[in-house]
């Protein structure tokens, strides 16, 4: 099996249907070893369905999906032995303690007895859960539960971690703690595959990401290249001013312009130059927000600023 040269995950025309409904529509992507790869999208975009196919929980309807060079539908056992999975809902066993959760899971990888106990203690320590070993899951906060789930996913020393919305529902401190852990794993050479609907999270953690909407991939690249391609380095938000109505010439300073409600969004290379130009055109000291562009702008440009539902 060509498991060494192969990318961590490779998908071509990957499609998942539930009955008549197409949740993932012929997507292509390739995840390199040791990178952090993100799937960004709103609820219902098809992120979880894609993750489930990668970690061999469910099988594709059509297309190709290889993990470590092996067909995911044909080699679930081999693939599962080499990856760690954190599902969207943690799937922690509420009838067991934190440590028992990790130990039982370890047993499915053939790790038992003293080895399992030592490994469990070490992993819970890494995830800052000392003193919580004997706590029932219901006694833990959302952030702690998530960390137990991550500790459990690490028990087989996975080459790749698949995390479905690892920080959704966590408070800001807990989210920071998870981010720090994920950055550590990445530094240790573990391939990370994650989903998120937080743009900031994806921008911080992911080497590369795709933006998913309605089962399709709309764009792919590094956070920086996506901003370059689908937004601009900077954004000027003008409040209550309709430039179109004022017929102000923008002299090529604005790459792209949008208006939503009372706000006009101007995508530009240089906010200072743009503001100076507006002042010279008679719009002095407008009510505005000048800021660098973010993935959020990319996302909204690609999927539209209106509420879909």
């Amino acid at each position: 099996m060509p498991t060494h040269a192969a990318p961590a995950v490779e998908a071509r025309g990957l499609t998942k249907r539930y009955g008549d409904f197409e949740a993932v529509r012929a997507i292509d992507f390739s995840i390199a070893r040791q990178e952090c790869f993100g799937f960004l999208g709103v609820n219902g975009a098809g992120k979880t369905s894609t993750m489930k196919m990668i970690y061999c929980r469910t099988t594709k309807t059509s297309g190709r999906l290889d993990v470590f060079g092996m067909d995911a539908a044909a080699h679930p056992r081999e693939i599962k032995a080499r990856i760690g999975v954190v599902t969207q809902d943690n799937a922690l066993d509420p009838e067991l303690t934190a440590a028992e959760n990790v130990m039982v899971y370890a047993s499915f990888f053939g790790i038992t007895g003293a080895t399992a106990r030592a490994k469990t203690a070490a992993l819970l320590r890494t995830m800052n859960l000392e003193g919580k070993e004997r706590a029932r899951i219901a006694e833990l906060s959302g952030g702690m539960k998530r960390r137990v789930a991550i500790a459990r996913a690490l028990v087989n020393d996975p080459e790749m971690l698949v995390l479905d919305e690892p920080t959704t529902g966590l408070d800001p401190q807990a989210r920071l703690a998870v981010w720090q852990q994920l950055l550590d794993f990445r530094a240790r050479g573990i391939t990370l595959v994650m989903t998120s609907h937080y743009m900031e999270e994806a921008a911080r953690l992911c080497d590369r990401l795709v933006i998913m909407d309605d089962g399709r991939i709309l764009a792919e690249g590094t956070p920086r290249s996506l901003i370059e391609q689908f937004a601009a380095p900077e954004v000027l938000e003008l409040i209550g001013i309709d430039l179109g109505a004022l017929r102000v010439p923008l002299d090529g300073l604005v790459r792209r312009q949008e208006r939503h409600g009372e706000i006009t969004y101007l995508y530009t290379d240089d906010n200072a130059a743009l503001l100076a130009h507006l002042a010279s055109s008679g719009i002095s000291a407008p009510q505005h927000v000048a800021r660098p562009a973010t993935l959020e702008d990319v996302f909204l440009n690609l999927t539209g600023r209106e509420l879909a539902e």
Partner: protein
Amino acid sequence: MNPLAAIFHRNAWNVFRRDFMAWQKYAFSSVAINIFEPMAWFLAIGFGLGAYLTLGKSSLVQFIAPGMLGLAALNAATFDACWGAYERLNFNGVYESMVTAPVDPLEIAAGEYLWQAFRATLYGAIFLVVIAGFGLVHSWWCLLSLPLLALCGILFAMPGLAVAFLVKTQEHLFYYFSFVTTPMAMIGGVFFPLDKLPHWLQNIAWCTPLYHSVQIFRALISGALTPNLLWDLLWLIVAIALLAYVPVPFLRNKLAR
């Protein structure tokens, strides 16, 4: 692979161990609940009603006592195979996390068979001790009821798990209790001999696993063994071999969603 062969897979024992670890935390209440109710039936019918009735040379309580072993196995395995497994599948994410590890649903089913075998053996053994205490056990053959209890646990687990893996809501489990297990307990030869029942009802009784297990339990407790019992044993073994496959596709289907 055959689900019975999967009983020897390491993962089946890991699933068993998980169930045991969870059960340990509420073992006392679980035993109390599973023993108290059948015990009340046993005392009320055996001694209460039995005071007014005799069955030839034997007393009603003597008749019922071995039947309680079959009933204990039925209750112990059915309750957890239905209610417990439904929660492990649908509420607690227990199976969901197992299949993110290299575990096949087949091994989960096999592990649950083992676990229900344990429950049936334990709760049945407690009953054995109780009826021995009442002086209702007359033979050392009674020790063979322990492996028979394990066999019954596996057998009763299979349809229970199939139902748990099939139904859409937990309330639907009551259909199985009301239409299958409770009537089976009534006509399975636990509480009264079947020879005065209409023929068609006797035929239905013959189709239940409880009937065959109770025939054997009764012989093991009294010591009056006959070669005919081998047919009852064969019936149980064939039923296990056939039913072993049934829950697996339902579980596989639910977990692949």
